[in-house]
């Protein structure tokens, strides 16, 4: 009857007592005041059509279930619409907390392949969505500069952007040079 469904038992080794502190330090300072009312889940546009439950992520974070939260694909279903943050009766910065946990997830090597691809485009061109031939043509027809006056047409600017992405560690993060589990 319950094939594939395991009872939710939390063992001590699953709990990282520092996990919430790190989320608080990074800016989601009121997260501990959560009363699990579920307003965040109720207003969530992704939650209305998937099994993603914001309340559940917050609860698991508060319990210190770091590995489970960071590995969860649900973390990436948030559209950052900010409805949960606006409606939270405890004024918890729910969306910020999700962004903080996403940063931790990426740092632990959890990144969706499409997101890595967009990041690689940023690293190569300075744009997550770079120009293509069809739009160069359309720009010309519209009387705009064929290549936008961005990093696309300025080598020094692109060089600066690449250098910044190197200095912040973004290049290593995306190239996967960073070790998993750190």
């Amino acid at each position, binding site marked *: 009857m319950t094939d594939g469904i395991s009872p939710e038992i939390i063992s001590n080794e699953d709990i990282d007592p520092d996990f919430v502190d790190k989320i608080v330090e990074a800016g989601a300072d009121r997260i501990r005041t959560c009363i699990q009312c579920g307003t965040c889940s109720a207003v969530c*546009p*992704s939650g209305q*059509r*998937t099994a993603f439950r914001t309340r559940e992520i917050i609860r698991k974070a508060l319990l210190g279930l770091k590995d489970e939260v960071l590995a969860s694909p649900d973390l*990436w*279903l*948030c*559209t*950052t*619409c*900010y*409805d949960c*943050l*606006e409606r939270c009766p405890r004024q918890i*910065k729910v*969306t910020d907390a999700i*962004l*903080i946990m*996403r*940063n931790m997830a*990426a*740092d632990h090597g959890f*990144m*969706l392949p*499409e*997101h890595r691809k*967009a*990041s690689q485009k*940023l690293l190569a061109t300075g*744009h*997550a*969505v*770079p*120009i*293509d031939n069809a*739009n160069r043509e*359309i*720009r010309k*027809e*519209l*009387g*705009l500069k064929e290549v*936008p*006056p*961005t*990093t696309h047409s*300025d080598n*020094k*600017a*692109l060089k*600066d*952007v690449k*250098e*910044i*992405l190197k*200095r*912040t*560690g*973004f290049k290593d*993060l995306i190239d996967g040079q960073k070790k998993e589990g750190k």
Partner: protein
Amino acid sequence: MTPETQTYSFFLGCVMPNRFPNLEASIWLVLPKLGINLEDLEGASCCPAPGVIRSFNEPTWLALAARNLALAEMSGNDLITGCNGCYATFKEALTEIREHPKRLKEVKKIFKGMGIKFSGKGEAKHIIEVISDLGPDKIREVVTRKLDGIKVGVHYGCHLLKPSKNRPWKQTQKHTFLDELVEATGAESTKYKDKDLCCGAGGGVRGSQVEVSVDIAKEKLDNLVEAGVDCIVDVCSFCHLQYETAQEQLNMEIGEKKYNIPVIYYTQLLGLAMELNPIELGLDKHVVDTKPLLDKILS
């Protein structure tokens, strides 16, 4: 006429210049006619995207955002953008820098030796914010062809409005400023169900989980079809991408042309009400054909 003109550095972002340059063309055409001058922000990069790059590494997001803001600062102008996502990045980055001097120091350290001067004192504005400051009366003055009988479904977009603590609007919810600007053209802002619903594209969801993303867009599109609007009016290049491409995708899935609501940017709507050339406004370069809308307005 306009007694004084303002000049802004126009931050293009990624989606507008590289996927929907027709929106960009309409902005270059219409804003100067309202007394708002625009200059290229040369060498700008991705803002970078608040839901994507900020999700992966916040310090990278802050540093690149600061570089773009610094380019505007060095040109002596405030920055202006026509994308809600870019707007969110700049509003949030400025607040982070201003409230935490430590963050400004970190960013400056990253810029070392690059000749980038940055104080965080310049402002970042949205195109619709500046138009809204002019007010609906000013819009009525420039309108020469009232768009009577045109039913518009207004879409604000999440990041234009939220987090409300860091946005300039008078209200925190049930906004009306864009509806008023639409109605100043003579068009009607039609009521429809769940008008404040997210377009579904943000947060990296469009890029990685397209089915969920399009399903959110579908909910709103169904409500707009139900309300019988002639077009959607948006003010965000990413929401725009979503409504243009989601309609095509949904039609392919169901095998019929159920979704064909023209999606236009506010400056395109205003341009039509100012009797500007639809071709110059880029209205022939949409994914969803704008002809039914143009026929209704030009007939």
